């Protein structure tokens, strides 16, 4: 049995759904953040696998972009979460509903 691109896709799908589920079900902003990372990286896996299967470098390129953007996003996001935690002593997103219309 050889490991084809399909397997990678399946793994990526599983990871994506795990991330999505975590995002929707957990309240802790830090955990939610990690879930988003998980989803991003599952997509990365898809890109790389598809790129390898199609013999194109575009997949790896896209993955690289995602990594860079994710790094930037983490920097800002973590800073916000830390500041919010200092002010409110909580990281629960349900309690942070000040933007309610």
């Amino acid at each position, binding site marked *: 049995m050889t490991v084809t691109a399909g397997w990678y896709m399946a793994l990526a799908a599983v990871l994506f759904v795990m991330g999505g589920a975590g*995002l929707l079900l957990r*309240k802790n902003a830090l955990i939610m953040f990690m879930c988003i990372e998980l989803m991003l990286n599952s997509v990365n896996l898809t890109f790389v696998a598809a790129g390898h299967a199609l013999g194109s470098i575009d997949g790896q390129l896209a993955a690289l972009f995602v990594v860079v953007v994710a790094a930037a996003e983490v920097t800002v996001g973590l800073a916000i979460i830390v500041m919010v935690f200092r002010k409110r002593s909580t990281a629960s997103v*349900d309690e942070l509903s000040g*933007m309610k*219309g």
Partner: protein
Amino acid sequence: MVDFIWIAVALPLLGAATLVVFGKRIGEPRSGYLASVLAGAAFVIVVIAAANFFAGGHQGEQVYLFSWIPGLGINAEFLWDPLSAVMTMVVAGVGSLIHVYSIGYMHGDERYSRFFAYMNLFLASMLILVLGANFAVLFVGWELVGLSSYLLISFWFEKPSAAAAGKKAFIVNRIGDFGFVVALMLIFATFGSLGFETVFGNAAGLLSEGGGTVTAITLLLLVGAAGKSAQLPLYVWLPDAMEGPTPVSALIHAATMVTAGVYMVARTGVLFELAPFSSGVVATVGALTALYAATIAIGQKDIKRVLAYSTISQLGYMFMGVGVAAYTAGIFHLMTHAFFKALLFLGAGSVIHAMSGEQDMDKMGGLRKAMPKTFATMAIAWVAISGIPPFSGFWSKDEILGATFNKGGYFVFLWAIGLITAGFTAYYMSRLMFRTFWGEKRWDKGVHPHESPGSMTIPLIALGALAAVGGLINTPWKLTLEHFLEPAFENVHLAHAPEGATPWILALVSVAAGAVGIYYAYRRFLVGEAPEEKGGVWETLLQGYYVDDLYGKTLVLPGKAAAEQLAFTADAKGIDGAVNGVGGLVKRLAVIAKPLQTGLARSYGVGILGGAAALVLIILVRGGW
């Protein structure tokens, strides 16, 4: 070559700028010294520039400064001819004396240096006005003197009456300026140029005598002149302008700025000659204003208001003069009037200064001994304005009256009005003198009149000398001023006083009118008890025939009501309503979308993931986009 004439304008302008910026640091009295020195320097420069004319030169010169509006062919240019030479010398000369006087008069004022900044600005503006070689430059000066007049009338703006007077002067002048601007447009449309040389040179060729265009242009110019020179019906701002410091009244509202209208009519004499109807209107407006204002002056109690109405009346004489094409006579009276009226105002200022700010003549009297210098100099101005020979007013007023009489027909009627006015003038001036300097002392308690300091009396004495002998430069035997001015009026036919025995008779009649006025005032105020001036007639005169009330009810009130309607109905309800309505609509629509914004991050997550899933589903079901 008089290329340096621009320096005469630049110096006071520089002084104004310096005093506005560094005035506080320069302080009192150095600001006054600086301003006076610059004004004096401007006078010296114009005298040097005029040397050629004194020596008998006739050639006018254009001084090109810079290209201003090339698209319309308008340059910033000065015209230096005998007329502008006389005007600049009067303006800068009298102006310098009044600057010196102000050093003492404004002593201790909170905004001492600011006052001198404005005075210098005025001087520069007035020089621009009389030096301009085209209507555009003249108009710049015209508006600048309006601005400085406004600033100086409301100089003590803490007083509501002074602030209101400044606004009134500005707005009434605006009405006149409207006419002036329309006249300028008509001139440009007709001649394609605003330059004096082009306009006056081509006037006879392009305009038919008595034609509609030239009549319209000249009548509109008259509207502008009437606004600036306080003629009927736009005179109402001048009496109120007395709210300004007295040197301002002397310089701007007696000697110089208000004569701008007379100057302008004289300058545009070529056009007025082509429009006999307009000239007649000018003379008629002048005569009526002269009589009308003189009657009001009889009933005034405030010493400065008497002089204000007297100024309006004398300006009426000048209009009469230029209206009958006796331009040199008009300018001559402008000059002598600048001397004796500036003197009267400065004298009145000296009296007010001595009476600790009291302006009501009911509370003066018997000041002769307390202030001998002020009294002596004012007495000269008194006989000068009353038309008693050989003092200056006699010569100039008589020349105007003679030229008017000489025109014959309808103008004899105007001459009669002028003659009656001469009697009234002598009467109200004598009344002012008798009630101020003679009679019993009616001073308030605690007022100790004293002679003013040297910086104030020296200008009085200088002006006194000019008022005494200034008229001798143009007597029927030696028409020095007329010959001096003639080159500036080479394109117009000047009216002259009659010849032979007639002028002697006319002069005798007008001196008699003045003497009767003085005698009547003498009988009334100095022999026995001075009468109480109370009752309906006196009240009517005191209120200036209630013209202010009339204008207030017919023009100001409707204007204010309209403004209120616009501000509180049209703007508040209409414009604001539309803007607020849009805002309210958005607010109401927002209520529908409001529940979507829950503030819960995870509900947004559901939305995003759900949306993504839906997209994927659509793609899968349709097999692609």
